[in-house]
């Protein structure tokens, strides 16, 4: 039986790698997750035959409950909320790795100090990924505000917390015991919370990706400690892939990891952002429709606001109505439009908008100078010219969509509030910009109706 289990684990690891490989290309992506899914099923089933186990009743209850609850939530949640779902499921993986570490440390079943050290490392990383992901979830879900939480002496407090956790962890090698294990995990979990608090909602995608890599690492450590090759291989692959993915994401947002993690410290000088000149000029929806009806080329720049208002299907109708009049319609997709790289493409694809109409930042930016109307729907920071012009702005240097180059800019916005980064947007005050206030779905719907009547 033991050999059979090892063979199954070997197959699982191989299938995971093949699955991940297939997921990295759009054409084979769907089959990739199926391969990996099959591998997971195989590994879970074969593990029931692991020799010398008991507690089968508890095990089955835990597997079935965990699977069912997670499955139902994952299927029900709207596509808009996917980023926080990734955060919470990732946190659970980290929690599981941490719990394995805790159990081994309390039971004292680890054969030597090296294994204890690995269990401690896995426990620390897993616990941080767990509590950190919960904070990330709370931020994106709107339970907590998106602004960074900062307080006095935050960095020393965080360091102290990490220091206590690390010391308790090292102490565990000398004198293992339940009380010390509890203390160790308490401070590890606390550190995960403290580390994530000063990070604002806009940076959460990078942080979730980072915690994803950390969970992989934690899983690999625990796999090492308990001598399970499937955990070692899968955890390491995810750790490496996740780290690279984190770096790629940070690059797409023009941020460094250090900047994301520690950027909020000592930066709370929002007054230095400079004054915005001009005034907001509102426009009626019917007038906006006329403006668009006589354009030759319209570029739509969708943002998270569009997704929140569930306006993507109405946007599809608008696209059809415009094309009906012979107007060329393109979509400008910022790398981090939505909440994560690629999130907006998924949302628009769901609404049935053609893949060929979606253009990346580099492709579309030269086009704005020949665009008659740019329609900004619920996007804010990704079209803020301050990123190009104002060195004091927190988003300075981030590549943006240059919608302000086009002849007319229409901005559909719910109110006069600021964007996710919490800064004023000069674009809204520009001479060629008109604001159309209202819920994105209603506004776009009215636009479509008005266009049809023209």
């Amino acid at each position, binding site marked *: 039986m033991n050999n059979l289990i090892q063979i199954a684990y070997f197959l699982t690891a191989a299938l995971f790698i093949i699955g991940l490989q297939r997921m*990295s290309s759009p*054409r084979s992506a769907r089959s990739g997750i199926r391969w990996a899914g099959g591998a997971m099923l195989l590994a879970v089933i074969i593990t029931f035959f692991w020799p010398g186990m008991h507690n089968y009743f508890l095990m089955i209850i835990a597997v079935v409950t965990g699977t069912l609850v997670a499955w139902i939530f994952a299927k029900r949640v709207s596509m808009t909320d996917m980023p926080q779902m990734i955060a919470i499921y990732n946190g659970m993986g980290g929690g599981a790795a941490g719990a394995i570490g805790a159990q081994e440390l309390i039971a004292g079943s680890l054969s030597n100090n090296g294994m204890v050290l690995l269990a401690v490392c896995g426990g620390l990383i897993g616990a941080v990924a767990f509590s950190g992901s919960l904070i990330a979830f709370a931020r994106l879900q709107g339970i907590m505000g998106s602004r960074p939480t900062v307080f006095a002496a935050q960095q020393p407090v965080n360091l102290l917390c990490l220091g206590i956790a690390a010391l308790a962890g090292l102490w565990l090698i000398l004198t293992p015991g339940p009380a010390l294990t509890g203390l160790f995990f308490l401070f590890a979990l606390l550190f995960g919370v403290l580390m994530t608090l000063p990070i604002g909602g806009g940076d959460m995608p990078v942080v979730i990706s980072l915690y994803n890599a950390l969970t992989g690492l934690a899983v690999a450590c625990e*796999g090492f400690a308990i001598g399970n090759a499937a955990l070692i291989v899968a955890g390491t692959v995810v750790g490496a892939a996740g780290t690279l993915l984190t770096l790629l994401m940070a690059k797409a947002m023009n941020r460094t990891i250090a900047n994301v993690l520690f950027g909020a410290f000592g930066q709370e000088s929002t007054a230095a952002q400079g004054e915005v000149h001009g005034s907001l000029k509102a426009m009626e929806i019917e007038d906006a429709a006329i403006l668009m009806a006589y354009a030759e080329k319209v570029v739509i720049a969708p943002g998270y606001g569009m997704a929140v208002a569930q306006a993507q299907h109405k946007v599809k109708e608008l696209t059809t109505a415009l094309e009906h009049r012979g107007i060329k319609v393109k979509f400008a997709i910022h790398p981090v439009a939505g909440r994560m790289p690629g999130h907006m493409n998924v949302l628009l694809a769901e609404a049935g908008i053609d893949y060929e109409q979606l253009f990346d930042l580099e492709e579309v930016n030269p086009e704005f100078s020949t665009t008659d109307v740019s329609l900004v729907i619920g996007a804010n920071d990704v079209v803020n010219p301050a990123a190009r012009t104002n060195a004091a702005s927190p988003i300075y240097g981030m590549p943006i969509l240059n919608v302000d180059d086009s002849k007319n800019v229409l901005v559909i916005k719910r109110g006069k509030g600021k964007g996710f980064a919490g800064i004023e947007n000069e674009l809204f005050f520009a001479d060629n910009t008109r604001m159309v206030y209202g819920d994105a779905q209603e506004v776009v719907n009215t636009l479509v109706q008005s266009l049809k009547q023209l």
Partner: protein
Amino acid sequence: MTGSIWAALYIILLAALTGYEVIRRVPVILHTPLMSGSNFIHGIVVVGAMVALGHAETFIEQLIGFIAVLLGAANAAGGYAVTERMLEMFEQKKLRSAPRE
């Protein structure tokens, strides 16, 4: 395990390189689905959790093991469902545009 510690280190080296290579040339649109996919893959932790629970003796060990399996199973199942829903979009896209070509 100690005897094979070097073998394990080589495994880690190769696995890390594999993970790096697989992700290296990924288009931006796949970043989120891929993050979700790798999130699913570390759900394999459920297997380790099952073994840990299977060897739990005292009540506290059973409790922690139970939590580990519960969380691990949720990671795997939730990760799979989320990833599949995202990737579904790519497939639908292909089907819809196929007849026009």
